[in-house]
């Protein structure tokens, strides 16, 4: 019974993760960063630019910038590459956008955080903790039957850990979405 449910969960999360990365379908994924006015309504203006041109926003991180007048946005979105140039230009046209940049092929520091709640019956716990250690993740919660792990790193690293934990049954996973920053003195 439990196995059955776990099996279903596992299957679902695989489908989910494929859709999120969108790699098998061949639709490319792009990393975009924006510096915007910290005002109501900015997010919807930005979302509309993507929506109108057939782009799906896969992840979105918004936070106040160092100067609280502005916000930083990091968007991962999938869609045709030739449309992206027009999207970036249209984003830059928005009055509330200070600048929008495509970082897809740039060398940047990328970081994402995930919380993963994985089934861990007593007999599997050591095994799971070994995997967790390998990915330098921390245990943030522990129960009779589950473990909650916190992992940070690149999207690829998080994907790899997710794949390794899949067979134990991932009950829930939350990812923050990617944040990016240009290396060196360059502006993001």
């Amino acid at each position: 019974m439990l196995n059955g449910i776990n099996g279903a969960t596992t299957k679902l999360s695989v489908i989910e993760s494929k859709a999120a990365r969108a790699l098998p379908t061949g639709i490319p994924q792009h990393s975009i960063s924006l510096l915007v006015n910290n005002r109501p309504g900015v997010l919807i203006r930005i979302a509309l630019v993507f929506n109108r041109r057939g782009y799906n926003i896969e992840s979105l991180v918004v936070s106040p910038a160092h100067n609280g007048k502005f916000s930083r946005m990091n968007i991962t979105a999938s869609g045709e590459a030739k449309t992206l140039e027009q999207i970036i230009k249209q984003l830059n046209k928005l009055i509330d956008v200070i600048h929008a940049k495509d970082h897809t092929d740039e060398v940047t520091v990328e970081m994402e955080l995930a919380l993963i709640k994985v089934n861990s019956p007593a007999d599997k716990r050591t095994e799971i903790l070994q995997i967790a250690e390998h990915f330098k993740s921390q245990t943030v919660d522990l129960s009779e039957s589950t473990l909650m792990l916190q992992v940070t790193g690149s999207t690829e690293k998080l994907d790899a850990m997710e794949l390794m934990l899949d067979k134990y049954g991932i009950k829930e996973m939350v990812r923050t979405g990617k944040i990016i920053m240009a290396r060196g003195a360059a502006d993001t």
Partner: protein
Amino acid sequence: MAHKTCTGAEALIHCIHQHGVEYIFGHPGGAAIPIFDALVDSPIKFILTRHEQGATHMADGMARATGKAGVVLVTSGPGATNTITGIMTAAMDSVPMVVITGQTIQSMLGLDAFQEADVVGISYPAVKHSYLVRNVNDIPRIIKEAFYIAESGRPGPVLIDIPKDVSGALFEPNYNVEIDLPGYTVPSNGDSAAIARCADLLAKAKKPLFLIGHGAVISDASRALKQLVEKLQIPVVNTLLGKGAFPESHELSLGMLGMHGTAYANKAVVDCDLIMSIGSRWDDRICGKYSAFCPNAVKIHVDIDPAEIGKMIKPDCSIVGDAKLVIEELIPLTRKGDTEGWLAQLKKWKKQFPLKYGKQGGLKAQYVLDEIYRLSKGKAIVTTDVGQHQMWAAQFYKTDSRFHWISSGGAGTMGFGMPAAIGAQFARPGAMVIAVVGDGGFQMTLSELATAALNKLPIKILIINNKYLGMVRQWQALFFENRYSGVDLEGNPNFVKLAEAYGMKGFRIKRNADVSKTLAAALAYNDGPCIIEAEVEKEDNVFPMIPAGSAISEMVLEAPKKAMAKPVGST
């Protein structure tokens, strides 16, 4: 600097007046009452329209006749949503406009209050920018920003939604505020290296062509453009909205290009070895099939909007900047190339493929427009709706100067022409303003006849009445085996009697023989607006025509003998 206490609405109207606004077009309602109250003591003239859409087109017409933002004031809910078509029309054609909408009090926002509509949300994709004013102290800054955004760079509509508790709030306004727009930069001069490269390309071309769009009108580039064209002896084609940037009666002008452009303009586009767009966005009406558009010509693109560069056409050389400033910088760098053979060829085409229409049979719209052009000496401000009459007007009413052609291009909004003429006439009281409209479009906003009559505006409304929605009927005739569907305007009113019902003068033209006489009488009538109803041939078609999505070389010059393939392009 503190000023005496006033309401938000009073500060709002004060700021609008300070900006030099003379007229506001609109319609009142509950949520806007404090603003209407502030108008009572203002020198600004409020023009009450019969529908909010009419108000937006009037503001649009005024803006296109002056280059300054037109201002609209309406109430919340349906009052606000009725402006959407007009806002979209202005956005598509880069027209400066400031639309002020009343809104329900802030504590009721999102609670489905009476006449509450999230107009900021509804209008996002159609505005250049928008504001929901939550703090009365922001009013002076927001008004300053709104006009700056609307009128600078590539102009466009700005919407300001003001909750009634904000417009009614008392405060001590500080009018000495700075705009705060860190995300908004307006390009001015072009990149000098690109301009030098452009000069070089122009000199090398044997068959160069200028493509002039609305951007050249907006930036007031006419003088510089004429100088450039005459120095280099390069022929000019213009878009529908580019009419007036370069005189269409000039010998180097080939008139309008595109779907219903002149044959010689389109032949020039097919044959040129260089095409330089100044302020045009290579719209699908002019390019047809993009993959077949000037495949062998060098393409140069001048535009103030960076997002237009490479959007439809990948240029070989692009310059982001103000058209006038770019041309002025370009002129001294250019040298005249050898274009004589090219000009001789074009002259031949002009003779060989002129715009023409049958002189026999029933009354022809083209003849009426040809005559009104002749009788008004080509000096009138012409506004239009969208459709067959618009294309015929564009073909036969040559435009020689800026602000004299006012037509809904990008949006193709029926019902635009007559209210736009009202706005243009308010802006230019001494000018002759002719609204060329179809019987279909006219009926979409005809309630504004009251506005024209009440204000005794001497606009001349020429209704090209073919009792059909003519352009759609033309498509159904040419591409859908004459299967007419939803295009018969049976039930049209008697337009002359309609004029009389509004206390206006009505004229009717039924026969070729009456055209000159009746038009002359109508043009001489200045005691108020008049309607001239021209009952034209019902099933005439506009030619030349390039089916949507086809290559320009597939232009059709006259009615084809056999059925044509359905067009692949949009609309």
